[in-house]
């Protein structure tokens, strides 16, 4: 550790701890996930940055949404994100989660991921290089240091906004089921 980092670490030990233990949930959407295997294995070795993949969302805190998000996938993304413990960070990888990318007029692809779950950072490009993931990780460290990687707090504060958007495209999601007036199903 750098000498200059000591006061920072003493000031907020939790942030300091969190930023070097990012566990990325194994969740593959779209074509961008092809960049993940070289990133986490010997070629680029994400462990140097403290990033390791985790097979279950319950023990992960970094969510890389790699590529286009179809409506069906969005349901799984929301379900996965809801399961992750706080603090959790979402990074949109590639141009498709930003504004739809090349699927901007596709009937089955959501255009702006930030409407449905809070995104902390974006990696632009189609495809971004694996190095871009490390740039994003370093940016995320800085954001955690400054205390502005607060997507998970926004999700709680503005849950109504996110829920409304989620309901708009996925009214049949399992988590909305109990809240729905299910007169037909009660019989």
């Amino acid at each position, binding site marked *: 550790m750098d000498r200059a980092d000591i006061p920072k670490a003493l000031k907020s030990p939790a942030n300091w701890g969190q930023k070097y233990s990012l566990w990325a949930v194994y969740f593959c959407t779209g074509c961008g996930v092809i960049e993940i295997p070289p990133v986490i294995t010997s070629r680029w070795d994400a462990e140097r940055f403290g990033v390791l993949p985790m097979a279950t969302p319950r023990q992960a805190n970094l969510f890389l949404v790699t590529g286009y998000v*179809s409506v069906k996938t969005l*349901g799984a993304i929301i379900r996965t994100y809801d399961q992750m413990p706080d603090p959790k960070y979402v990074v949109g990888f590639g141009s498709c989660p930003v*504004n739809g990318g090349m699927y*901007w007029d596709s*009937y089955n692809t*959501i255009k*702006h991921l*930030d409407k449905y779950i809070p995104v902390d950072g974006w990696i632009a490009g189609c495809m971004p290089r694996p190095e871009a993931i490390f740039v994003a990780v370093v940016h995320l460290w800085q954001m955690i240091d400054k205390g502005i990687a607060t997507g998970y707090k926004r999700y709680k504060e503005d849950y109504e906004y996110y829920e409304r958007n989620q309901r708009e*495209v996925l*009214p049949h999601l399992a988590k909305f089921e109990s809240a729905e007036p299910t007169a037909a199903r009660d019989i």
Partner: protein
Amino acid sequence: MSEENLKKAIERDLEGATATVQNKGRLVAAVPKAGAVSALILLKAHGFEHLSAISCTDWLEQGEFELVYHLWSYTDKIHVMLKTRLPREAPRTVTASPVFRHAQTYEREIHEMYGVHFEGNPRLTPFLLDHWQGPPPMRRDFDTRKYVQDAFGSTPSLEEE
């Protein structure tokens, strides 16, 4: 069986069928809608045991859908494109699933994407789309941009921050 003999057999044994040999190993056959399944049975008897795909084309100007059955014979190394046309209004045809069981899945997809009804297919349930409410999306008169605007809204501008 050579391409020429196959062309003769198709035109002899199927009513209203025409066939053309495009080049070596490629044959295009057109049959009326009612004869599509009998054509598949005939071709299967001639060794075309692999139905690679069923595709659908929307000929909007002519008011027709065109179904293309792609068949392949491992013994003769011939690819047959069996074409048949349906009216665009309330398109219905008979399923090919008794002849080729996996045709069920292809038909299920065409049903979802084009709204073609396959009589006798027991499983025309939603397939790839999730709780789709709109019209079949691969039809050419489906306005994708308008649908995108209505369903997903516009992307917020960057100045929000």
